[in-house]
């Protein structure tokens, strides 16, 4: 085929593209899954390697009830651009997790933190039937990681509609792409434990101090 039109441009393009593909394949630019901890219709928990992250102090030991206490303190507001931001501030923050969601999630998050390496974070998805249950899943997704003494939570989707299939079930030729991660303002109560991690400059929960106050004495 190449000989009919000469080496360049057809074969040149092909070879360049293949080389580019091999090079690009070797360097991930977005977090990617390294191990699936648990997967069912309600919860997906996996380990992700984040190429941009500063090292965490994993593996980390946290009991499910300790994690429950931490997750229960989180709330959010959707990050808005101006001028909607002025009005968004009037809206009180919403709890991220319901109690049944925390109950379903924490055993696997705890397991994930135990198995995670220092360059991995624990990614989760909370699933529920979507608005069109045949095609979509209601998805709350994010990740947690521990860098002593802080616990980081990243929220990527809050009750977003994720396609179940890779193609639109009603339009087989059109790819069904999950929505992009959203931007959220996270809050934590009690606010005195919501601090800035000096390593990453991101906000995180001062885990150890919080656990002293939040967890029953029997666990201390």
């Amino acid at each position, binding site marked *: 085929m190449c000989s009919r039109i000469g080496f360049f*441009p057809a074969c040149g*393009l092909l070879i360049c593209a293949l080389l580019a*593909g091999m090079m690009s394949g070797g360097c991930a630019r977005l977090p990617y899954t390294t191990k699936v901890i648990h997967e069912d219709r309600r919860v997906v928990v996996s380990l992700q390697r984040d190429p941009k992250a500063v090292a965490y102090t994993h593996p980390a030991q946290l009991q499910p009830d300790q994690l429950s206490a931490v997750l229960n303190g989180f709330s959010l507001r959707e990050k808005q651009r101006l001028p909607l931001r002025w009005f968004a501030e009037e809206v009180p923050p919403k709890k991220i997790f319901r109690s049944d969601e925390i109950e379903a999630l924490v055993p696997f998050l705890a397991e994930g933190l135990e198995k995670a390496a220092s360059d991995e974070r624990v990614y989760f998805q909370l699933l529920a039937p979507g*608005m069109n249950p*045949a095609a979509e899943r209601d998805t709350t997704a994010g990740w947690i990681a521990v860098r002593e003494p802080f616990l980081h939570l990243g929220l990527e989707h809050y009750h977003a509609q994720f396609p179940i299939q890779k193609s639109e079930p*009603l339009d087989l030729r059109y790819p069904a792409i999950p929505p992009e991660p959203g931007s959220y303002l996270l809050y934590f109560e009690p606010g005195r434990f919501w601090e800035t991690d000096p390593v990453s400059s991101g906000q995180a929960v001062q885990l150890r101090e919080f656990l002293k106050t939040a967890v029953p004495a029997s666990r201390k």
Partner: protein
Amino acid sequence: MKLRTILGNIIEPIRQTTGIIAISTLILFLIEAYPAHAVDTGKLVEKDGQYVFVESMDPATRLLLERAYEKGIITQEERDKAIKDSETRAYLMQPSFKMWYDRGFNFSMNDNAFLLKIRGRMQLRETTRWRNDAWRNPGDAKNYPELLGVFGDYRANRSDDFASQFNLRRARLLFLGHLLSPDFKYFVQLGFETAENAQTPGAANLLDFYFLSTHLPLLNVQVGQYKVFFNRAQINSTASMQFAERAPVMDAFTASGLNRRDVGITIMNDDEVYPVNYYLGVFNGAGPLFNRYGTYNSEEPTVPCPGGQTSGNPFPSPSPATCPANQRNLNANFRDEIDKLMYAGRLQWNILGRPGYGEGDLAYSEKPQMAVGGGLAYNPGINTSTDNAFVGIDLANLNFRRQLATFGNGRQLGWGVVNYLTQAYDAVFKYRGFSLQGEYYFKNIDRTFKGAPCLQTAGQGGPCTAFAPGLLGNSTGWYVQSGYYLIPRKLEVAARYSYWDPDTNASGDLIKQVDASINWFPFGTYDYQLMLTYSNLAMGTGGYAIGRSNPLPSTGGSQNTVPCPATFPSGCVPLDRVGGTLIENAIRVQLQIFF
């Protein structure tokens, strides 16, 4: 012994009673647990674009009930009954349908037995192009000719060198959803756009209307009008491309050779379930909104004498010797080739993952995605008009001819009835924002009228004095394209090279195109995109095209005679008198909004 029997008689009822008590306790516990569960019930509802969990019962009422129960004002039975009645009332009061926006306006019954999704898609394009002088003369009369009037005489596609125009390239309205169950789907797509170089403004066209049953994953059935599952480039939606436009070679090798869409039925398996997918379809093979009843020849009242034009049929042959001179003009009355159907099949193997049909790796595949596939289509009995240059003497239906010209297969016009056997082979690879895909095409064109067509006769019905200098060959082509997301899910660069030989018997007719594109997806989906595509097209004007190249049709005389004698119905000057390669450099800026 007797004592043991007495003890046994006493213990056994106690043991049985204990079992009964345990079971009863469990039942009571479950009964007890049910109201507590009911109190916690609720559901996710959409409100102002947010999904929130709402309890089935009004929180204030519930608080009062709980307090009343805790203080002993009401009994547990009364509390439970109030909760149950409240939930029943709430259930009965809620509407039986829901409406929301999510990639389209959605309307659904609560039991999901019916869904209607309405979407709109617009591609607004600005094209700036520079063409060489060959576009002024000779222009393109061979691959994309314009067909004039009811006779379909050939006209060269010519233009000035520079052009800059806005174009609503795609204006679509989609109605899609399911009926009765999510496994019985429907899809309706209307198009209102105008193609580049179109002579008339766009009108509402029914592009797709089909039903799809997915009840059996191994045997999905699709019926109606839709794009034939044949080659990758055409199966893919124009909403998920890496370039503003398909390469010319992609359009030339559709299953039917006429159009990417057709009316028929396809069986296939569910490609979300099985790694190897098949598609088998039977179609009219006549293009969208059309069937073969609408294609015809002219026949004299005497069967089977071919109909003549105003000045009579110039040929002694193939008319039977017993045919009369000319009974009636331009009948266009004889439906033939109406027993033919098109058969198209495709086989695909998803070797790694499932890359799908969308171009580029917008989804940023975490794992390598790779697939290979191939298609085979047989579309017999395509009437390309008479197998000579006397345009109009049989007045074959113009719809077939115009579709051939629109999709770049104009060199196949005028060669009588042909059978197309088209092959397509493709491969695709995607990984972490990188994509590479390519296809190879080959179309075997079988002319049912063998031999070289007669082009000039010595007078009406006289012997043939000039034949076509060469016969129509087959057609082949391929393309390869690659892309990479510089910013994952946001910014992509892509390049493509395409090669097309429209007539393997002709020389100087190759069509090559190089494209480069930079694409911005502001929201990380195909729905919203801004593309800037540069294209360089080189189209050879060589080779013989019937009715456009020498020798031109004549019933006597010489085309060198001035003025041109009346015996040349299509004129005396061939449209490719001036040769050369048509060069076009174009920049297309295209905005897509799919909502």
